[in-house]
């Protein structure tokens, strides 16, 4: 059956769109929503309720609808959308839901993005108040953004056929929009819902940019965009939602809000049914009844709960053959998948009468939309004449205009819009421009106050307060009977207001019923908190384009391309990609690392160390400053020399380590670990700026200025000599822990003789632009020696064989330098340095602290898993088992010809020589505790 009028509505009847709903092939037109198209086809039952499985229809025409949940299946599956907000497109497939949607396992092909926008005045809502506010602001020259959730401006005007200033309201709207769109500095965003209002004028809005295009949506266009709007002033012209009245069996399809039926009529040319009863507590539903009657709908009866019907409207109804029964209410309905009968009785007590119909239109008054105002921390006030919470205070940068204030007269709403727009631009520092004339409406409905009626007594088990959650009056009364008083408790007890609609139509009614049940004034009740988002927002929209390779920046060195080309596997270290190892054909990690280690210890290897943090420290007090930051003495370091240093936090725990190079009398270059580069620079700045501004020191990051290449192994000297002919590489001329500026492979370089492996080694630093060329030159110069590039894993093995800790692997913020066996790096001479005072706390003085040691499995072929715990006994007692520490690092060693590990062990330094046990799966592996240095203890290899 066709419920589409032959004319009227903002739809294109010349174009037919085909769509499928619950498997049924149907048609509609451009301009339709899925809901209007369904109603045009006579389909009211959309889904079923979540708990009771009762049929659910379409209650409202917009985003406040509590029931019309659908799953869209084309062009990509999306759950839990409202049929009332899905714009129809050709080929749409959808099905009704029972309160639960389904996530598609297929990857979402759509693009998403975000955009920042700044303005002087943001207007939310393009109804009469918002339009006038926006135009008033625009005429002042301010930067204005107007957002509206509909696909066209007009707001409530879209749902009526009123004339403004003697012409169709659409023309009035179009004129304003046209002026706005041609005014410089004005941005009008349709299909854009302001969903969150945060501090300092930060408003988030979701724009649906291509959903309405269906299959024709261009793949290159972001489907949805999150607008991050920072505004000086905001005008909230968010309108009002009509609310129903609760009565028995008020949930059947065909029962609809009166104004929504009117919207379906005027905006989409759709009739809600053939024969409609109207139940109201106020005037507005009369207009719906008259409009529908004039469109051919049989309106047998208007049930008006007020003791007296409005005389003029009642006369108009009588002229159209519509009976009006004042002082009556709807007490119940019949029907299964659609309402078939309505029971009507006098309010209070009386014998019910039954009226046959296929539609019941309900109006219980209006709830101003105050969600964003409340999110902006505006206080709400209960307006007893409206039966609703309204904005209860003025905010400095947020103004409310139109029916969002509770005002329902169009001219008055527009006036509020104009006043709010003018006040906003003045507050933003502008002078209002030409005054926008206020429209005069020909609307019939001028009486504004109605009767506040939350529910009609009746079968409480079937009187639904939240249609989506199947929560009834019985549930509310059970909650109050259980002792609950707070609306928040009752919301949780009954689940009212927790569904997709967040209680837009049900919340106020629930509060009213609770107040009645408890015998308290609503004015004394705190409404439940409005939380973002106002309407739901897809996760993908919020993630925007920060996905895949753009999820988090990848940092690469100047030599990265070479590593990729040479088959390196990479390790993520903070945001950096570092070569982990370079497997050759058929090699696994262990095989590759054994090869890389052997080559390095026996001949020469090199790695890309560019990711190390590097900080230039300059100034007269640079030495003094570093003395405070490092546990050891740096001010005594001589120019030309290098010292290893450890840094602690104020709590005395190790936070970083690295080398310190004295470049000049007043200049140092310090290195940090890869992951801590930014943190340590920040740490330095924090101390300098907030504690020691008197110190003459400046710190500058040069991490990426330099490419850093450790060249390691007994043949490193030969390789270096080949590429640095002007450098005397002899042990005498170039001592350990010194540096020289020279040229390497023809480019300026700083070469440091430091070693993290115990081998003869040089660290070559060149400007990053030269990094790749120098790397390749070293590869070439080293080829006679079989030079081998190695990655972080080999670096870890080489340093572990020497007992050098890795910050973050051997340490975990509970480890002191002393625990690491580095008392030698803790100055006894300095009166103070950061962390020193903490070393003398009781806990630090314990002799049974966990200390860094080496572990040698008794069976030299057993590799201990890193992270293994260590116990004292060769049999495990019942849990909890006393643990002595854990394995921090563990490797097979080519140099040692066996496996080994480093570990933090309670009283470890005293336990050297002891046998301890490491539970590995079901076995206990015996290990011997050793000093942490396992290879070349005498340091013979350092000088080559």
């Amino acid at each position, binding site marked *: 059956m066709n419920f589409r009028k032959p004319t009227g509505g903002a739809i294109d009847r010349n174009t037919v769109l085909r769509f499928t709903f619950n498997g049924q092939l149907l048609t509609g037109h451009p301009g339709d929503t899925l809901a209007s198209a369904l109603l045009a086809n006579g389909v009211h039952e959309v889904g079923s309720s979540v708990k009771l499985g009762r049929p659910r229809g379409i209650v409202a025409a917009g985003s406040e609808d509590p029931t019309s949940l659908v799953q869209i299946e084309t062009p990509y599956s999306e759950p839990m959308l409202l049929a009332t907000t899905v714009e129809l497109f050709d080929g749409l497939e959808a099905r009704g839901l029972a309160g639960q949607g389904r996530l598609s396992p297929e990857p979402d092909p759509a693009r998403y993005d975000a955009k920042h926008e700044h303005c002087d005045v943001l207007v939310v809502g393009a109804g009469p108040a918002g339009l006038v506010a926006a135009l008033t602001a625009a005429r002042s020259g301010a930067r204005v953004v107007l957002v509206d959730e509909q696909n066209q401006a007009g707001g409530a005007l879209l749902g009526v056929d009123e004339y403004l200033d003697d012409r169709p309201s659409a023309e009035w709207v179009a004129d304003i929009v046209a002026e706005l769109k041609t005014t410089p500095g004005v941005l009008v965003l349709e299909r854009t819902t302001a969903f969150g209002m945060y501090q300092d004028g930060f408003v988030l809005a979701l724009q649906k940019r291509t959903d309405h295009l269906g299959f024709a949506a261009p793949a290159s266009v972001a489907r949805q965009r999150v607008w991050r709007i920072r505004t000086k002033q905001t005008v909230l012209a968010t309108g009002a939602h009509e609310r129903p009245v609760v009565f028995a069996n008020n949930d059947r399809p065909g029962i609809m809000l009166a104004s929504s039926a009117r919207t379906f009529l005027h905006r989409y040319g759709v009739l809600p049914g053939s024969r409609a009863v109207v139940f109201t507590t106020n005037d507005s539903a009369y207009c719906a009844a008259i409009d529908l009657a004039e469109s051919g709908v049989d309106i047998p009866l208007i049930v008006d709960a007020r003791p007296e019907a409005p005389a003029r409207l009642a006369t108009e109804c009588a002229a159209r053959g519509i009976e009006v029964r004042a002082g009556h209410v709807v007490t119940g309905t019949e029907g299964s998948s659609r309402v078939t009968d309505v029971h009507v009785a006098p309010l209070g007590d009386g014998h019910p009468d039954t009226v046959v119909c296929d539609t019941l239109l309900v109006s219980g008054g209006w709830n101003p939309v105050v969600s964003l105002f409340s999110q902006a921390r505006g206080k709400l006030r209960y307006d007893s004449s409206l039966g609703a919470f309204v904005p209860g205070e003025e905010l400095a940068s947020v103004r409310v205009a139109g029916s969002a204030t509770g005002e329902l007269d169009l001219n008055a709403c527009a006036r509020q819009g104009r006043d709010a727009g003018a006040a906003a631009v003045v507050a933003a520092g502008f002078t209002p421009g030409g005054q926008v004339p206020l429209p005069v409406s020909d609307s019939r409905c001028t009486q504004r106050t109605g009767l506040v009626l939350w529910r009609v007594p009746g079968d409480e088990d079937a009187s639904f307060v939240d249609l989506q959650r199947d929560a009834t009056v019985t549930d509310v009364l059970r909650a109050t009977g259980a002792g609950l008083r707070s609306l928040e408790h009752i919301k949780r007890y009954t689940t009212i207001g927790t569904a997709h609609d967040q209680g837009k139509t049900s919340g106020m009614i629930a509060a009213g019923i609770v107040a009645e049940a408890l015998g308290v004034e609503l004015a004394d009740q705190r409404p439940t908190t409005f939380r973002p988002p106002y309407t739901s927002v897809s996760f993908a929209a919020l993630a925007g384009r920060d996905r895949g390779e753009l999820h988090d920046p990848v940092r690469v060195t100047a030599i990265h391309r070479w590593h990729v080309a040479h088959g390196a596997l990479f390790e993520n270290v903070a945001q950096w990609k570092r070569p982990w190892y370079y497997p050759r054909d058929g090699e696994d990690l262990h095989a590759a690392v054994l090869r890389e280690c052997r080559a390095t210890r026996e001949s020469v290897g090199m790695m890309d160390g560019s990711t190390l943090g590097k900080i230039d420290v300059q100034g007269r007090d640079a030495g003094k400053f570093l003395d405070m930051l490092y546990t050891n003495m740096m001010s005594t370091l001589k120019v030309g020399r290098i010292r290893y240093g450890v840094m602690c936090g104020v709590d005395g725990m190790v936070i970083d380590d690295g080398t310190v190079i004295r470049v000049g009398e007043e200049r140092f270059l310090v290195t940090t670990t890869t992951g801590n580069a930014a943190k340590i620079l920040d740490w330095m700045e924090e101390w300098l*700026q907030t504690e020691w501004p008197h110190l003459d020191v400046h710190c500058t990051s040069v991490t990426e200025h330099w490419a850093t290449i450790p060249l390691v192994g007994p043949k490193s000297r030969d390789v270096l000599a080949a590429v640095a002919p002007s450098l005397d590489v002899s042990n005498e001329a170039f001592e350990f822990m010194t540096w020289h500026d020279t040229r390497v492979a023809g480019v300026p370089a700083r070469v440091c003789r430091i070693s993290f492996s115990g081998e003869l080694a040089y660290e070559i630093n060149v400007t990053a632009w030269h990094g790749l060329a120098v790397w390749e030159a070293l590869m070439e110069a080293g080829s006679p020696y079989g030079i081998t590039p190695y990655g972080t894993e080999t670096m870890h093995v080489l340093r572990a064989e020497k007992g050098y800790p890795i910050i973050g692997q051997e340490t975990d913020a509970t480890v002191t330098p002393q625990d690491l066996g580095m008392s030698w790096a803790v100055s006894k001479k300095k009166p*103070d340095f950061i962390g020193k005072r903490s070393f003398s706390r009781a806990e630090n003085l314990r002799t049974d602290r966990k200390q860094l040691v080496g572990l040698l499995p008794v069976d030299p072929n057993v590799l201990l898993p890193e992270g293994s715990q260590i116990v004292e006994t060769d049999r495990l007692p019942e849990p909890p088992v006393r643990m002595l520490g854990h394995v921090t690092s563990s490797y097979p060693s080519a140099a040692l010809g066996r496996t080994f590990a480093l570990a933090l062990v309670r009283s470890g330094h005293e336990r050297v020589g002891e046998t301890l046990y490491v539970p590995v799966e079901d076995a206990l592996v015996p290990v011997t505790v050793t000093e942490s240095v396992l290879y070349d203890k005498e340091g013979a290899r350092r000088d080559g």
Partner: protein
Amino acid sequence: MQLIPCPWCGPREEAEFHYGGQAHVAYPEDPSALSDEEWAQYVFFRENPSGPFAERWSHSAGCRRWFNAVRDTRTHDLIAVYRAGEPMPEVIS
């Protein structure tokens, strides 16, 4: 998201800033002279008021300057910002 007025760069989004906790907690003149209790107060204990709070921020993604702010922790509204070394404005009643 808060809009934080960096005393140098002007208002910027909170995401550009690093939070530094309570302001005006000076590093002790001579830590070695402190008792363990006094030292612990410096290391671990900070004011945590519900209301105006003098605190430190660093404009880490901008000019990298540390500065101080008085912010109401109930509303998160910034009451005042002032540069490091400047005295706290008299906004805490």
